[in-house]
C-alpha cells in the first residue's frame, strides 16, 4: 500500500478577496442559462419562448439519471432557446431570459419533505446541485449510495486554487448551513467521522468551523498544509483518512464521500427554505480587474455583466472559469456564469500570454511535483512516439490534470495538454482493442457454429 506524503506545489495564494463580503449583482437585463452545467446528460428545457418565469422556477428538467434540473435565478420572460460555444469548445443549448427586475419568487417554493435517506437524495436531486468545487458531478448521484458503505464524510473546504475565496466566504458567512448539511449527512448515512478539510492558510475558517461544529458528534476540522492540490478529491481523502482510491474506483469504494462545502450549504438552504440552486458567489479577480471582490450572481449571467459591475483596469486578454491552476479559459465574455463557476479571473496581456516551450532538460520537476507520482515527461515521449501501451503502463488515466507538472516545468512544456491528448489516444486504443477482441470472439463463435 502507498505510504508517505503526496507531492504538490506551493502555488501563489493571492487570496485578495478573503475579506470581501459578497455583494449582490444588479439584475442583468438578460441571462443565458446553459443546459450543460454538469458531468453527464444536459438538462432538457421545460419552458418555451414567451413563458413567464420567476425566481426558483424550473426551466429544465434533469436529462437523465446522471443529470440535474435547472432553475431560473431571475423573474422575467423566456425570449428564445439559443446555442453558444461553451468553454470546452462544444455547442450548448441556452435558455435566454429577459429579466423584469422584479425578482419575484416563484409561488411553488416550499421546503421539501425529508424523512429518510431516499427522500434526502431526492431533495438533493430536486435542488439542482452539482459539484460546486468545479467538477460539476451531479451531487444526488454521488449521495445515492448504500449508507452502510460510508465511513468517512469529507467536506471539502480546502480551496487550494489561487485567488478563489468563494468557499472561504461560504465557511465564514454560512457556517451554520454547512453544519446543518453535515448533520443531515450524519443522520442519513452511518459515517463514523465527518471531517472538513481546510488549508491552513485560512485559519479564520478553521476557527469558525470548529466553533460552529461544537457538539456535533463525530465532527472534526482538519487543518491541512496549504499545498496545492490539497482539495483534489483523492488527495483530500488520503490526507484526511489515509485511504488510497485505486485506479478506476470511486471514493465510496474506500468508504468515503467527498462533498464541497458550498455544495453542502446549498443543499442545506434548499432543505430549509425550498430555494434551489439559482445563484452563485463568484470571486472576481485577476490582473485586469480594478477592484477584486466577491459577487452574488444569478446562474446564467453573462461574464460581461459581472466584469462591468466589478470594473476593469484594461481589456482582458484571457478570462477563466475557476482558478489559474485548473480553470478553463472562455472563448467570449458572452459566456455565462454556470452552477459550478466559483471564480471569474480576468488577466491582462502580460499574464494571458502563453509561455514559449523549449526543450525538456530532464530536471525531473514534473515527476517530483506530481501528486500521483506520474511521469509527465515520459508520458509526453510516449505520446509523441504514438505508444498507447506505454501510456497505459505509465497510468496516464490517473492524471487529474491539476497542472502541477506544467506549473513547475522550467522549459514550459505543455504537459497538461499532452496528458489530455494522451488520455484520448489511450482511450481510442482501448476501444479499438476491445472492438477487435469482440470481432474475433464473434468470428470464432461463428466458426464453432459451422
Amino acid at each position, binding site marked *: 500500500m502507498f505510504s508517505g506524503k503526496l507531492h504538490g506545489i506551493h502555488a501563489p495564494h493571492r487570496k485578495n478577496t478573503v475579506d470581501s463580503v459578497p455583494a449582490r449583482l444588479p439584475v442583468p437585463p438578460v441571462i443565458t442559462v446553459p443546459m450543460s452545467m454538469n458531468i453527464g446528460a444536459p438538462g432538457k428545457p421545460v419552458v418555451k419562448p414567451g413563458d413567464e418565469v420567476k425566481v426558483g422556477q424550473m426551466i429544465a428538467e434533469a436529462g437523465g439519471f446522471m443529470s440535474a434540473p435547472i432553475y431560473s435565478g431571475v423573474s422575467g420572460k423566456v425570449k428564445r432557446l439559443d446555442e453558444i460555444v461553451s468553454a470546452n469548445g462544444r455547442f450548448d443549448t441556452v435558455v435566454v431570459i429577459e429579466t423584469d427586475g422584479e425578482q419575484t419568487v416563484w409561488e411553488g417554493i416550499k421546503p421539501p419533505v425529508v424523512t429518510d435517506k431516499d427522500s434526502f437524495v431526492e431533495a438533493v436531486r430536486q435542488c439542482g446541485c452539482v459539484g460546486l468545487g468545479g467538477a460539476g458531478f451531479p451531487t444526488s448521484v454521488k449521495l445515492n449510495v448504500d449508507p452502510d458503505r460510508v465511513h468517512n464524510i469529507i467536506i471539502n473546504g480546502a480551496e487550494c486554487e489561487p485567488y478563489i475565496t468563494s468557499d472561504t466566504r461560504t465557511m465564514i458567512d454560512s457556517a451554520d448551513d454547512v453544519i446543518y448539511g453535515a448533520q443531515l449527512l450524519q443522520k442519513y448515512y452511518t459515517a463514523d467521522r465527518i471531517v472538513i478539510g481546510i488549508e491552513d492558510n485560512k485559519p479564520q475558517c478553521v476557527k469558525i468551523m470548529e466553533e460552529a461544529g461544537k457538539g456535533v458528534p463525530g465532527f472534526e476540522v482538519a487543518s491541512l498544509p496549504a499545498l496545492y492540490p490539497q482539495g483534489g478529491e483523492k488527495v483530500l481523502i488520503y490526507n484526511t483518512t489515509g485511504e488510497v482510491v485505486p485506479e478506476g474506483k470511486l471514493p465510496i469504494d474506500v468508504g468515503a464521500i467527498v462533498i464541497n462545502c458550498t455544495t453542502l450549504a446549498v443543499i442545506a438552504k434548499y432543505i430549509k427554505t425550498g430555494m434551489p440552486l439559482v445563484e452563485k458567489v463568484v470571486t472576481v479577480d485577476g490582473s485586469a480587474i480594478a477592484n477584486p471582490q466577491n459577487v452574488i450572481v444569478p446562474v446564467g449571467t453573462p461574464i460581461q455583466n459581472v466584469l462591468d459591475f466589478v470594473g476593469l483596469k484594461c481589456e482582458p486578454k484571457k478570462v477563466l472559469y475557476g482558478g489559474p491552476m485548473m480553470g478553463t479559459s472562455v472563448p467570449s465574455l458572452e459566456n455565462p456564469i454556470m452552477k459550478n463557476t466559483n471564480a471569474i479571473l480576468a488577466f491582462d496581456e502580460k499574464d494571458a500570454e502563453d509561455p514559449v516551450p*523549449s526543450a525538456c532538460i530532464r530536471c525531473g520537476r514534473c515527476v517530483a511535483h506530481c501528486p500521483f*507520482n506520474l511521469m509527465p515527461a515520459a508520458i509526453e515521449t510516449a505520446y509523441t512516439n504514438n505508444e498507447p501501451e506505454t501510456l497505459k503502463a505509465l497510468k496516464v488515466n490517473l492524471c487529474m490534470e491539476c497542472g502541477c507538472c506544467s506549473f513547475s516545468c522550467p522549459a*514550459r512544456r505543455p504537459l497538461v495538454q499532452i496528458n489530455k491528448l494522451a488520455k484520448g489516444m489511450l482511450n481510442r486504443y482501448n476501444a479499438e482493442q476491445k472492438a477487435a477482441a469482440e470481432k474475433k470472439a464473434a468470428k470464432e463463435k461463428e466458426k464453432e457454429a459451422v
Partner: protein
Amino acid sequence: MNNMIVSVNPHVYAKDTTQTIMRDVLIALFPAVIASIIFFGVRALLVEAVCVAVAVVCEWAFEKITNRPITIMDLSAAVTGLILALNLPVSIPIWQAMFGAFVAIIVVKQFFGGIGQNFANPAITARVIMLVAFSGAMTNWLPAAFSNAPADAVTAATPLAILGGAEGALPTLAQMFLGARGGSMGETSCLALLIGGLYLIYRRVISWHTPVAFIGTVLVLTALLGKDPLYQVMAGGLFLGAIFMATDYTTSPPTPAGKLIFGVGCGLITVLIRVWGNYPEGVSFSILLMNILNPYISGWTKTKPFGGVQA
C-alpha cells in the same frame, strides 16, 4: 471581443525557467572561478573566458547551420564551457581548450540532439577526450599560490599523485580545503565548490542526494581500504564532479532513489580507479560510466503511481 486567448490549464507558472536554472549554476560556480584566479593567476580567467565563448559560439553556429532554434540564451552552453574550463590545468594551450569546448558542444551535445538529449555530460566527455588526446598538457600541473611547492618549482604534483608515490610535499588539510594545491584550476578549492553546492541546494536547482552519496561513498570506501579518507575526499576533482557534473539533469536519474544509486556508483568507480587503476584520478571516468548506466538506473527507480493497480 473575439481576440481573447484560450488555452489549456494551468495559467500560472513557477518562476524558474531553464535560463534561471543555468544562471544559478553560473552563480554557484562563481566562487570556484574566483578561487581559480587566486591560486593560478589571471590566465585561469583567460582559459575560462575562451571556453565559455567557444562553447556559446559553437552552439549558435551549429543551430544556425542546421536551422534550429537558437538556444544560447538558455545559458546551458555557457555552463558547459565554464565547467570544462574549471576541469583543465591552467597551463593548457588555448587551442586545446578551444578544441575541448568544440567537442563538448558540437560532438557530445548537439550531435545527439542538443539540450536534454545528450547521453553523457558534455564537459566530462570533452575532458576525457582531451586527457587521451593531450595527455601531456592535461597533466601538466603548475604550483598553486600559497601552496607548499618550492618557490623555484616549475610544476607541482597533485595530492593524489603524491599519495600514489610521486615526489612532492603533501599539502596540509587546510591547504586542501582552501585550494592551495596542484590540480585542475577549478577543482582545488573545496570551500568555493561547497559554497556553490549549498547555493544550488538552497535554490533547489540540485538535491543533496547525488553529491552526498558520491562523496560519502568515497569517504567510507577509502577509509575501509586504509587510505586517508579526508585527503581522498578533498583531492582530485571529487567536489567539482559530485556537485556540478554528477548532478547534470540530462545524464543522471530524476528520482531521489535513482540519484542515490547514481552517486554511490560514481563513488565506487572513483575509488576503484584511484586505488587499483592506472590513473591517479577517476572522478571523470566514474561519472562518464554512470552516465551510460543512467537509463537503466532511471528504469529501475521509476516512481510508483498513487492508486495505480498492476495490470
